[in-house]
């Protein structure tokens, strides 16, 4: 049996969580999932400013901090912290934690090969809309394929203490230690499905141990000390989800169900690079305090294509805000919105989209929100997005003047009132036949 923990659900997650997983009980592998779709866009911006960046910058200092404990407890680390630049990430980890044997997994970056793929007839149409890639072809910044678990397992087999991948399937971080420890074959579909399912359950960190859960959230103890998830997996693909004893949070079947369904499509076909996992045969049982046993994982083959994550320049945007108060808070905010829109029109500013929200009233609840007249205070939030930076910049001057020249009772303009112009990087999913991708592993001695 191996214990595979996950100490980060995204880049920006709780800094203390990985240390606590290492210190507060037994684990064999520490996984750290830093990459959401939007993270790739953030990393792209950072790499543009400095070619030695483009990875999760929290990771090297974390390895420096944990290095002695990892060595002492023989805990190995598997992460996608490499982002768009695993090599630079590895250099920084080795500089800060020279005692750790580091490996990188590459082969996911295919930016320079887009033309080659198109010439071969791979269309790279948008995975959601079917739109042809011509729409963004001349604005592409980066393209990365989602790699599977096997190259990561290969790095573990080569003796790496720390495996740094770039874009790989989140669940592969957990499946890789299983493949390494148990020698699971590339066509042992049910086993791979079990590992990928365990990986999916823990990939968002504390979301499976009571964080962001609707299951009796008031009663979940000690969220300030929440324990991050641990998957205990055996060679036969039997696994349980738990957390260290004495930590906060809660692990129950109802909570794990919320996470099982999180950011998936068809539960009969959870697509990963290594296996198509079927969640509809799973059985979840509470097996004691903070321990859920999961059986019935089934897999059937693997997809013929890998998913590509493509970043492209999508223009500029800014959002400006003002707060209005009762009486008639919403009516005042709506009047202010009309003024801003008329001024945009009269200035001749062209945008791809102008979007207005009323935070505190209906931004998240839409038409189901209570009557506007009942709202004592509301934040007007106007966003614009367009191709011309100058137009977006001009918009940012249109909110603050309303404090003196618009409806009465506006506040909240200090600091946040003047909107910041931000570059927009869009994300385009596409499919590529898997044979086009050749992952590689480099181990630094």
């Amino acid at each position, binding site marked *: 049996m191996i214990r595979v923990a996950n100490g980060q659900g995204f880049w920006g997650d709780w800094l203390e969580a990985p240390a606590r997983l290492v210190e507060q009980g037994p684990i064999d592998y520490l996984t750290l999932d830093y990459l959401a*779709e*939007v993270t790739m*866009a*953030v990393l792209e911006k950072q790499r543009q400013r400095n070619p030695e960046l483009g990875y999760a910058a929290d990771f090297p200092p974390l390895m420096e901090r944990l290095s002695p404990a990892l060595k002492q407890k023989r805990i190995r680390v598997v992460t996608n912290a490499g982002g768009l630049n695993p090599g630079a990430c590895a250099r920084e980890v080795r500089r800060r934690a020279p005692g750790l044997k580091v490996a990188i997994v590459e082969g996911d970056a295919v930016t320079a090969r887009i033309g080659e793929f198109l010439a071969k007839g791979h269309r790279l149409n948008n*995975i*959601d*809309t079917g739109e042809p890639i011509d729409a963004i072809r001349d604005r592409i910044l980066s393209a990365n394929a989602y790699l599977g678990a096997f190259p990561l397992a290969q790095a573990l087999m080569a003796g790496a203490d720390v495996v740094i991948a770039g874009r790989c399937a989140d669940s592969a971080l957990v499946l890789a230690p299983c493949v390494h420890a148990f020698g699971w074959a590339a066509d042992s579909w049910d086993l791979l499905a079990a590992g990928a399912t365990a990986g999916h359950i823990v990939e968002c960190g504390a*979301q499976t141990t009571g964080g*962001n*859960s*609707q*299951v009796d959230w008031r009663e979940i103890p000690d969220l300030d000390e929440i324990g991050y998830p641990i998957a205990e997996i055996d060679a036969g693909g039997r696994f349980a989800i738990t957390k260290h004893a004495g930590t906060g949070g809660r692990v129950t079947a*109802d909570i794990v*169900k*919320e*996470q*099982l*369904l*999180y*950011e*998936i*499509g*068809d*539960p*009969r076909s959870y697509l990963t690079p290594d296996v198509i996992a079927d*969640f*509809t*045969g*799973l*059985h*979840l049982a509470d097996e004691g305090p903070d321990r859920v046993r999961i059986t*019935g994982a089934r897999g059937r083959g693997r997809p013929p294509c890998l998913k590509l994550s493509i970043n492209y320049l*999508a223009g500029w*945007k800014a*959002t400006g805000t003002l707060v209005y108060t009762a009486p008639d808070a919403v009516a005042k905010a709506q009047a202010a919105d009309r003024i801003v829109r008329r001024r945009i029109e009269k200035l001749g500013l062209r945008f791809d*989209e102008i*979007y207005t*929200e009323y*935070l505190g009233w209906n*931004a*998240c*609840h*839409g*038409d*189901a929100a209570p009557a506007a007249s009942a709202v004592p205070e509301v934040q007007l*939030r106007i*966003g*614009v*997005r367009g191709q011309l930076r100058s137009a977006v910049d001009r918009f940012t001057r249109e909110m603050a003047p309303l404090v003196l020249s618009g409806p009465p009772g506006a506040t909240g303009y200090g600091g946040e009132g003047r909107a910041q112009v931000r570059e*927009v*990087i*869009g*994300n385009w*999913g596409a499919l590529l036949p898997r044979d086009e991708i050749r992952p590689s592993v480099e181990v630094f001695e």
Partner: protein
Amino acid sequence: MKAPLSRIAHTRSGDKGDVVNIGVIAWRAEDYPVLMREVTAARVFEFFEDRIAGPVERFEAPNLGALNFLLHGALGGGGTVSLRIDSQGKTFGAALLRMEIEIDE
């Protein structure tokens, strides 16, 4: 009788690009048929119609007592393109809990 969805189910929502998914889970296994009957793709689309382009797809996981919905064109472009405060669809699940359904007495 009429009741909000929150009476019999809990939810979690998230994003993939411009698509929001909402997992809807019956608190009790015996209420799964009520979810099946009441929480249709058409009704979920109608509920969010002020904000999403659609369509809405529904998938079934009876072993979990759960349904999963995919709301296409739901985030104004999604990711960093979106201008919305909830650009990653985190609150769609909580919003859906307000949906009025017919529950068994």
